[in-house]
């Protein structure tokens, strides 16, 4: 094979052709012959590079220099400068646009990407991109080299557990659905990622939809399902659109529909969109919603694997669970099982939010410690503040404190510590967060999202919220903490589904670790973190105040008065303690007491 020191890729998409790309190629060939470089430099045609608005365009490797906006007459000059003299022709050079991805940047220290490996690297709307990174190879392997039982065995051996939160072994779930002798069977993908602060599944659906699709098709082959539903929340319109494109392309390529890849296995699926109900992430509620009903959970058993969508056996897994499957099949169970802890294998995606330097999406091996996540992966605490607590598992999870920082993250360890894995939201808080207020916030959420079917959850969460509000407003009294504890226990014991059973968790765990904050609110009428509005007051301090009037202009209730260049004053009667003045003040002149 001939060796070329340089390759010139010229874009020949219709736009560039219209602007004379063919003339450019001819001119390049002629000029390279004339200069005697034709054996050293190869000219190739390629598709769109990314600057076609100013075409023609070409890219020179190995330097990776991108030229746009020239024509055939400029070619001799470019050849002379670049290939003979080795000077880049700045005039035509297009600088690569730096796209800052705030959610998912380059690989961070200690990260291992399996689920997120393609996100941001392939075009999610082009199936060929996915095929180029071994896409649908696993499906081929499963269909032609493995029996459904072997597929299930492989997933079982990999140790993959449900990534939706509960952590039920995926292989066992598939096996249960396979065992039931009732047809047709359905595959359901739970893409109703409703935990506030969690967006891992959205990113996978938007960035690598085919990996989820392939996982579902392999799963359908394993359990014997013939149709499937992806239930996606309505808050994710782009995910729905991207996934629908993926489905259409997979059908076109024969990965979906009748006789997949020429075998006698047939499977198809569609996206069903929710309408804004958090409880639909619970599997029985989700199934009700797919059937066009109110998304109310129903008692289990019967489990969906026996009686699910339309009363038929249904296998339900989360987005992340499915997207792990193709690589497990391709690389084998031992590879996957080599990562993680004794009982929790592989990796887990987390959405890191809150007061850290580098929030965003991460994927780390199971068993990593919270300390490593916060200080190595997420860059440490924001503005030199101190770590106080981390909320894991969303509104049904709990908070963990400094003493848990070295806990290896896996399903059992988190449950033991009084929290849970959940779908993977991590909200990290510093000393400016009031734990009573956080508990109140989560209770406000679960109370509003309680579907209302069972009393402990419907009424219990309401009562909990009222108590917490009372405490935050400074009306807490002796005995309230005990009342909270009693209510929490009753709600956990008696609720029908995971939402109700988990709803008291934030209260229970904050009471356990931050009881003194509750006590400060109740007995001293004081909010130690200076968050609860009725318990704080704002003051403007001399000499920091320069009298710039910014605070007065931004105050929503006109509680701030003062002449320009004079010390300003806050009228405590009028002040609603919204804190806007603190945010807008450029001189840190406003203190919170």
């Amino acid at each position, binding site marked *: 094979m001939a060796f070329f020191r340089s390759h010139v890729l010229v874009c020949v998409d219709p736009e560039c052709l219209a602007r004379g790309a063919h003339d450019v190629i001819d001119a390049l060939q002629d000029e390279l012959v004339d200069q005697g470089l034709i054996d050293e430099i190869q000219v190739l045609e390629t598709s769109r590079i990314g600057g076609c608005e100013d075409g023609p365009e070409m890219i020179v490797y190995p330097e990776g220099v991108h030229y746009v906006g020239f024509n055939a007459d400029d070619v001799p000059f470019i050849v002379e400068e670049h290939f003979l003299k080795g000077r880049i022709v700045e005039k035509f050079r297009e600088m690569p646009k730096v796209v800052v991805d705030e959610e998912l940047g380059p690989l961070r220290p200690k990260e291992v990407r399996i689920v997120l490996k393609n996100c941001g690297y392939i075009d999610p709307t082009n199936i060929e991109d996915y095929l180029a990174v071994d896409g649908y190879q696993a499906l081929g392997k499963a269909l032609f080299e493995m029996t459904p039982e072997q597929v299930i065995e492989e997933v079982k051996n990999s140790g993959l557990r449900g990534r939706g939160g509960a952590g039920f072994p995926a292989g066992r779930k598939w096996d249960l659905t396979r065992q039931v002798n009732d047809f047709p069977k359905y595959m359901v993908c739970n893409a109703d990622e409703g935990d506030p*602060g969690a967006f891992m599944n959205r990113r996978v659906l938007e960035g690598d939809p085919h990996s989820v699709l392939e996982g579902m098709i392999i799963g359908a082959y394993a359990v014997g399902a013939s149709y499937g539903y992806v239930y996606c929340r309505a808050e994710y319109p782009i995910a729905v659109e991207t996934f629908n494109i993926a489905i259409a392309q997979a059908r076109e390529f024969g990965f979906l529909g009748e006789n997949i890849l020429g075998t006698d296995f047939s499977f198809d699926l569609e996206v069903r*969109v929710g309408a804004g109900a958090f409880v639909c992430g619970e599997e029985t509620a989700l199934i009700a919603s797919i059937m066009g009903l109110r998304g109310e959970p129903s008692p289990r058993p019967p489990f969906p694997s026996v009686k699910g969508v339309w009363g038929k056996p249904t296998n339900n897994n989360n987005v992340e669970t499915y997207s792990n499957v193709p690589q497990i099949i391709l690389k084998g169970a031992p590879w996957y099982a080599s990562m993680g802890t004794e009982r929790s294998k592989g990796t887990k995606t987390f959405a890191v*939010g809150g007061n850290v330097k580098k929030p*965003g999406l991460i994927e780390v091996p199971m068993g990593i410690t919270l300390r490593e996540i916060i200080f190595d992966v997420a860059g440490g605490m924001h503005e030199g503040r101190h770590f106080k607590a981390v909320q894991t598992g969303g509104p049904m999870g709990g908070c963990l404190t400094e003493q848990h920082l070295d806990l290896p993250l896996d399903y059992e360890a988190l449950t033991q510590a009084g929290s849970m894995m959940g779908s993977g939201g991590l909200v990290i*808080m510093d000393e400016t967060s009031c734990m009573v207020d956080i508990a109140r916030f989560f209770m406000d959420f679960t109370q509003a999202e309680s579907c209302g079917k069972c009393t402990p959850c419907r009424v219990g969460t309401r009562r909990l919220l009222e108590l917490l509000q009372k405490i935050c407003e400074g009306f807490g009294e002796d005995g309230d903490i005990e009342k909270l504890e009693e209510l929490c226990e009753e709600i956990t014991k008696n609720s029908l589904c995971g939402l109700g059973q988990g709803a008291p968790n934030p209260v229970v765990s904050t009471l356990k670790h931050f009881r003194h904050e509750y006590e400060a609110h109740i007995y001293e009428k004081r909010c130690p973190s200076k968050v609860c509005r009725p318990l704080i007051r704002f003051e403007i301090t001399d000499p920091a105040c320069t009298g710039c009037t910014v605070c007065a202009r931004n105050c929503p209730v006109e509680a701030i008065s003062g002449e320009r260049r004079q010390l300003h004053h806050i009228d405590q009667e009028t002040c609603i303690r919204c804190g806007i003045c603190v945010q807008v003040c450029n001189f840190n002149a406003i203190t919170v007491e």
Partner: protein
Amino acid sequence: MTRLLKNIASNDPLNITEQKAIIEKAIADNKDRQGAVMLVLNEVQGKIGHVSPAMQAYIARKLNVPLGQVHGVVTFYSFFKTQPRGKYTIKFCLGTACYVAGVPQLVEKAKQMLNIDLDQTTPDGMITLEECRCVGACSQAPVVVVDEEIHGRLRPNKFPQVLKALQAKDGAAKEAAGAD
């Protein structure tokens, strides 16, 4: 059900030819699919912006399901609205990260500027203020969603700019419509 269908308000989508056509199409497209109620309602809510009581009755009748089922679904999910919304909707994300980053202050600012409460529409029918569940853009907290567009890292003193941009957009749209 009959009562609701007998006295339909003149401004109800059922009495507006183009909107009626949207409803009819949504029903025709999904009638034979399983779980049609949600599919039709999602389509109608998405394109018209609300599902009035008369529309619920009409959909129930056409799909041959009890009105109670349709009404039950409409009232269960927060995306379905029974009243018309403003031309533009400003939603405040209530996710944990946004809450911690100061969405409550933004809400205060918006309420004060527009002189309406949450879930209300300005008297000129232009802007509706709403809260919404986490939109999953937590790294940009605090987040405000104007129609489908996400505005991140928004401080209360920057909020007037969002309103201004919206007014400019509306003016441009009106001008374009006038030019046609």
